[in-house]
């Protein structure tokens, strides 16, 4: 009988022929064996991919530039230079003023006008009249020397308040009192300490008498108001505080994500771990890294379906998500951890009766290499917000997709038009917004919203170019390891 079985199957099947699905040849013809057919009209590739790539790069850059020009102003307060911080913002370029009087003037401040017009003198006198605390005492004798040239430098107003009367009445005094020096800062110019002359350094008197008086501070504020000047620049982190930095971080934790795709829409959790490195300059940064996420899917469909007549349904869906990794030292978002990439399977469901396997578990492990760039647009410690965009490379490392156990005699037939092969290597576009709140120097809470789309269809052997659009909302608690 055994030989009869063998013989019957051999005779019945050896010369049995059946037409294969036409897509098999399409897959073979698309392989590297066949050179591109130049006779066939090449399908024009949509420029959408490049547009998307340009968008994810240019969008953060343009937002950052906008932020930069709207908010960045030079710090006009040199730390070691006592002065009266006045900005003349509506000052014409042709009427620039420079200091010419470096010599100690005994008891009077001279306002000299050299190759200037009357409005310039008026402006300078206005400035002087607003600066000096005791105008009634000095005004009759003050002289400010100003010179108009192309350079825009601080105007130095020298005065000797301690002994104005004495000094003025002793012009022959060989050792005049060191002058008090006041600088009027012209808009847009970084203040610089004028080099002190060797012969006058020892005679410079302390200047804090001006600065420490409440009257003096009020006058300065009033000056700004009178001159229509902008307030001093914010004393937030200077952009040059940490111009070039490198950072590496490890992150592991759970995440929730939502996946919108042709086949599924659900929220689930997963675990991941990644090592991320970032190199940055100011608020710009470029991050890259590698991570592994393992995801176990408990297929609920077999618990909900009572009985269906469609058998062998094999849809695969791939999604990707990134979570931010932050540098807790107030600088930038340092990278984006690939959190969850998974492919899930709806297993075949038999038509005869329900499968005995109600809780089918599948596990996939992917390698992810994110290459992201971006910048922070809001930096208000402990809160910060950043935009980022870039590409990510995915590769399937391990797939453990168990075959369900079917009762004896169950006939399983796959639906052919769903029998597509999933790609094991993918490139994704990715862009999104990241927010972070530093709990302390090490721990932080993060939240992210990202959208992504694969460059190619996630399947091969099919004409359908399925590029699932993915939307992700994630949250994390992280610790920084540096």
């Amino acid at each position, binding site marked *: *009988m*055994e030989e*009869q*079985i*063998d013989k*019957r*199957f*051999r005779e*019945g*099947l*050896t*010369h*049995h*022929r*059946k*037409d*294969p*699905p036409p*897509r*098999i*040849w399409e*897959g*073979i*013809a698309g*392989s590297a*064996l*066949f*050179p591109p*057919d130049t006779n066939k009209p090449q399908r024009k590739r949509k420029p959408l991919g490049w547009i998307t790539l340009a968008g994810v790069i240019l969008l953060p850059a343009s937002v950052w530039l906008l932020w930069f020009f709207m908010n960045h102003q030079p710090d006009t307060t040199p730390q070691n230079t006592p002065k009266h911080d006045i900005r003349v913002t509506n000052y014409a370029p042709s009427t620039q003023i420079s200091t010419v009087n470096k010599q100690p003037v005994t008891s009077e401040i001279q306002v000299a006008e050299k190759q200037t017009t009357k409005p310039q003198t008026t402006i300078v006198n206005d400035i002087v009249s607003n600066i000096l605390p005791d105008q009634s005492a000095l005004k009759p004798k003050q002289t400010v020397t100003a010179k108009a040239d192309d350079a825009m430098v601080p105007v130095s107003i020298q005065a000797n308040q301690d002994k104005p009367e004495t000094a003025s009445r002793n012009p022959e005094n060989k050792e005049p009192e060191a002058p008090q020096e006041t600088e009027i800062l012209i808009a847009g110019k970084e203040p610089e300490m004028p080099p002190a002359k060797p012969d006058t350094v020892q005679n410079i008197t302390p200047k804090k008498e001006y600065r420490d008086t409440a009257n003096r501070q009020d006058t300065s504020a009033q000056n700004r108001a009178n001159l229509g000047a902008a307030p001093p620049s914010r004393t937030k982190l200077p952009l040059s505080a940490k111009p070039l930095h490198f950072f590496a971080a490890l992150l592991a934790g759970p995440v929730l994500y939502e996946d919108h795709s042709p086949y599924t829409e659900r929220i689930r959790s997963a675990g991941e771990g990644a090592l991320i490195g970032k190199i940055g300059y100011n608020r710009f940064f470029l991050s890259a890294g590698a991570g592994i996420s393992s995801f176990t899917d408990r297929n609920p469909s077999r618990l909900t379906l009572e009985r269906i007549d469609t058998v*062998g349904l*094999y849809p695969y869906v791939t999604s990707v998500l990134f979570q931010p990794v932050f540098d807790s030292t107030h600088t930038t978002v340092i990278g984006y951890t690939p959190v969850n990439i998974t492919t899930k399977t709806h297993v*075949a469901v038999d038509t005869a009766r329900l499968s005995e396997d109600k809780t089918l578990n599948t596990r996939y492990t992917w390698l992810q290499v994110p290459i992201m760039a971006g910048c922070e647009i809001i930096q208000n410690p402990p809160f910060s917000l950043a935009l980022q965009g870039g590409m990510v490379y995915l590769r399937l490392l391990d797939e453990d997709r168990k*075959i369900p156990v079917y009762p004896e*005699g*169950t*006939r*399983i*037939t*796959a639906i*052919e038009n769903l*029998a*597509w*092969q999933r790609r094991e290597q993918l490139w994704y576009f990715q862009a999104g917004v990241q927010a972070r709140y530093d709990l302390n120097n090490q721990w932080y809470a993060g939240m992210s919203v990202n959208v992504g789309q694969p460059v190619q269809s996630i399947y091969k*052997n099919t004409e359908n170019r399925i590029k699932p659009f993915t939307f992700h909302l994630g949250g994390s608690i992280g610790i920084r390891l540096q």
Partner: protein
Amino acid sequence: MPSQADLIRGCIERDPHLMEQFYKHFAPEMWVVCLRYTRNVMTAEDVMQEGFIRAFETIGTFTGAGSFQGWLRRVFVTSAINHFKKYYRFEKQETDLSYVPGIKYAENADVLSKMSADEMMDLLKTLPDGYRMVFNLYAIEGYSHKEIAEMLGCTEGTSRSQLLRARAQLMGKIGSMEHQAPVEKEKVVQNQG
């Protein structure tokens, strides 16, 4: 239609037109081979594609000794074996052979002789992967247990036991088909009544 020699020459020279003709000529036969060795259509497509690509790449090694169909079939069988090694394992659980003795072989002979090729294909698909692989190689392709053991990387004993269990399961299924038929007839009669 070009001759077989022209098709082979065209494939060696990578002529796209002749390669497509080659595919159309041999695909129906090789498709059945792929279906026999695999569990479902999706996997069969993988094996089919891999087999043809492999055949196009190595067709220059065909020396002309023996039939070309035999050489091509061997390429596809190798492709199926590679797929089996990559994704499947032999069944570890023992098949309950007591399932079989209740079925009288003599009673099955009639059913077996009347089975169509499609029904036999469906029966093969119900076998566990290891059983199906060994049964195909031994019963249909005609390889010995020694050759099968070398190809699959197992022992001859494993090959023998897998074949025995495959036959047992097939006989059991054939027997159940024979027993089911009278029951269905009874139902039909009852419904008509």
